[in-house]
């Protein structure tokens, strides 16, 4: 293994069993074979088994911060457990350099009856610290946890946030070479989360390798350089965090928009006059899409059949988010006039060079009216789902185009 590599994972897999009775049987068989010093042939699946982690390989450098993303049940925790050495992989090989400290669950090993103070010692011991080491770091730990008078009350009276504070405080003071953090910080308040990330940055600069499991895209972007995106136990992507999280969000949005069916277009108004066909959203290249990164180009394609000649039809496309926010594109407001006795099938293209709606899920309505908005002809009320994702390299939910300038007003010498 290279000197600067902290963790090397080569094609590891882990299988789990869906049936508990079979799991017992397999457990006994594996133990039996191992006792006789025989291989348990772990590389093959038996009945009712499946690969929870399937053929994953990656390498993490010393002092690197590595993200692990993927939907629930994609094998992230299992992977962490194997890296931590809690159980063996069923295939492949893991090599780890140095002392590992893991935060896979909040305060695992805390005894609810014991006080915070007592639990610091017990937990520290479980995480591999000696008495002197804990004595020495005790002040720093309680300082970091910042739980005040609760230090001497039983842990069972703690809020879940305080639990995490104490648990995290002990784990980071282990001075590990590798720190595994499994989504535990989400429980703490913003202040504490910031403190944890600062601390992680600090120990990373001192050469500690960090693996971070989180669902928060911001965290992945800000605090990790590379990431592994797991899906159904398989590697979907490994590489830069920016790209990884982008792909992850794209996948989620795609699934989400596919899951929602188009509702039955609302009741008819004057469909004998004209009729709207389902709206289509197209990207820059004319591909149909159901989601978009905020600020990208959007083309709306609205087809309509005119059964009668109308003098001045008005078209509208409205977007609503779940807070009731509405964004409308209406032809009358845009001073578009379509007079000229149209009849037959018509296609309206609305070109929006930068679709700056904030990242959210939107329901979309299409509408056609005659001369004034009250004279509804056809209305597909909230019949379409459209998702806007966050722009790349954006911190908030919208990224507006900006121009920056820096100017000296008065120079101080």
């Amino acid at each position, binding site marked *: *293994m290279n000197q600067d590599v902290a963790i090397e994972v080569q094609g590891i897999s*882990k299988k*789990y069993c869906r049936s508990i009775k079979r*799991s*017992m049987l397999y*457990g*006994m068989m*594996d*133990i039996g074979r*191992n*006792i006789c*010093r*025989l*291989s*348990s042939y*772990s*590389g093959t699946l038996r009945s009712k088994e499946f690969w929870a982690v399937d053929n994953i390989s990656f390498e993490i450098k010393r002092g690197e911060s590595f993200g692990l993303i993927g939907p629930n049940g994609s094998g992230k925790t299992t992977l962490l*457990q*194997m890296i*931590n*050495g*809690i*159980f*063996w*992989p*069923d*295939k*492949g*090989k*893991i*090599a*780890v*350099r*140095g*002392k*590992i400290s*893991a935060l*896979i*669950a909040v305060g*695992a*090993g805390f*005894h609810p*009856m*014991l006080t915070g103070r*007592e639990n610091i*010692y*017990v937990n520290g*011991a*479980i*995480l*591999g610290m*000696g*008495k002197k080491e804990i004595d020495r770091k005790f002040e720093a730990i309680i300082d970091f946890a910042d739980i005040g008078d609760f230090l001497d009350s*039983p842990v069972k009276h703690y809020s879940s946030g305080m639990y995490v504070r104490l648990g995290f405080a002990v784990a980071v003071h282990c001075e590990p*070479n590798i720190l595994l953090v499994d989504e535990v910080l989400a429980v703490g308040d913003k202040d504490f989360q910031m403190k944890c990330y600062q601390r992680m940055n600090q120990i990373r600069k001192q050469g500690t390798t960090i693996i971070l499991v989180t669902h928060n895209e911001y965290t992945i972007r800000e605090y990790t350089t590379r990431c592994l995106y797991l899906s159904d136990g398989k590697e979907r992507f490994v590489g830069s965090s920016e790209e990884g999280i982008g792909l992850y969000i794209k996948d989620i949005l795609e699934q989400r928009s596919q899951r929602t069916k188009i509702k039955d277009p609302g009741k008819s108004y004057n469909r004998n006059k004209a009729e709207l066909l389902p709206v289509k959203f197209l990207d820059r290249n004319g591909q149909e899409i159901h989601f978009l990164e905020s600020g990208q180009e959007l083309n709306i394609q609205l087809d309509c059949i005119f059964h009668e000649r109308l003098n001045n039809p008005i078209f509208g496309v409205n977007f609503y988010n779940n807070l009731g926010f509405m964004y409308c594109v209406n032809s009358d407001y845009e001073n578009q006039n379509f007079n000229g006795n149209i009849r037959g099938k018509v296609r309206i293209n609305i070109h929006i060079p930068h679709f700056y709606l904030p990242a959210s899920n939107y329901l979309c309505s299409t509408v056609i009216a005659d001369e004034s908005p009250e004279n509804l002809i056809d209305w597909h009320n909230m019949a379409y789902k459209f998702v806007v994702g966050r722009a790349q390299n954006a911190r908030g939910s919208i990224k507006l185009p900006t121009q920056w300038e820096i100017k000296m007003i008065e120079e101080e010498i």
Partner: protein
Amino acid sequence: MSNSIVTYKPDNFIEKGYVSIFREIFLELKENRWLTFQLFQRDFFAGYKQSFFGICWTLVTPLMSVGTFIVLNKSGVFSVGEIGMPYPLYAIIGIAFWNLFSSGLASGSDALVRAGNMLTKINFSKKSLVLASFGSSIVSFLIQLILALALFAYYKILPAPGILFLPIVIVPILLLSLGLSFIFALLNSIMRDIGKALPMVLTFLMFLTPVLYGKPKAGILLHITQYNPLYYFVSEARSLVLTGTMTTTEIKGFFFSWLGALGIFIVGLVLFHLTEKRIAERI
């Protein structure tokens, strides 16, 4: 230290020789002494935290059980045979030895299951869990011993000089109980049946072993007793303390039981070491 590389792969230990396994076990136990003590403290003190009488409960349990047998004995329901000494003294020493074995085994076999999700979240020495669970039984053994000494004083009897051999008698009890605990803890974490059956089996064994009655003079019980290592550990250990005598056949039996206990301890420890990683994935 930061440069040591650990590798994990399927059936990790298979290539290792037995010598290195023993070395590993020894180093692991040595390194985790403090952890073991902390785990013991945690369970011991946490158990009495939310109770008025707190630690006094450790005294109550043995007092109650001896009291029960005194009452039964006095009322003639329960005949103990010839023992040649005050029954309370006889009973409490017997119970002390027996409990050292049985309560240790019961809590040791349950240690992994009790630890629950800690096993799947933190990588630490699981042997420490089993060892730590013996702490409480050792403490209550010592308390019962003090009770026994108080009874010696009350009856104005001097314990036999054999009491000085106490450590030699306690060690095999602990070894046997620990060895079995390692094996049962492992099995129990996969099949909970072990944990369900064990208390019943222990009660049965207690009545099969002359803990609260004298050595049977004849019949099938005598045969069983002769080959029952627990008889040597409990009953013979007691005669050593009380009268200071052991016949040569009994010394032989005691010696073989000693060896057996040592064997079971080593086998249990090695089996546990070889397969403890299998626990976390099935518990």
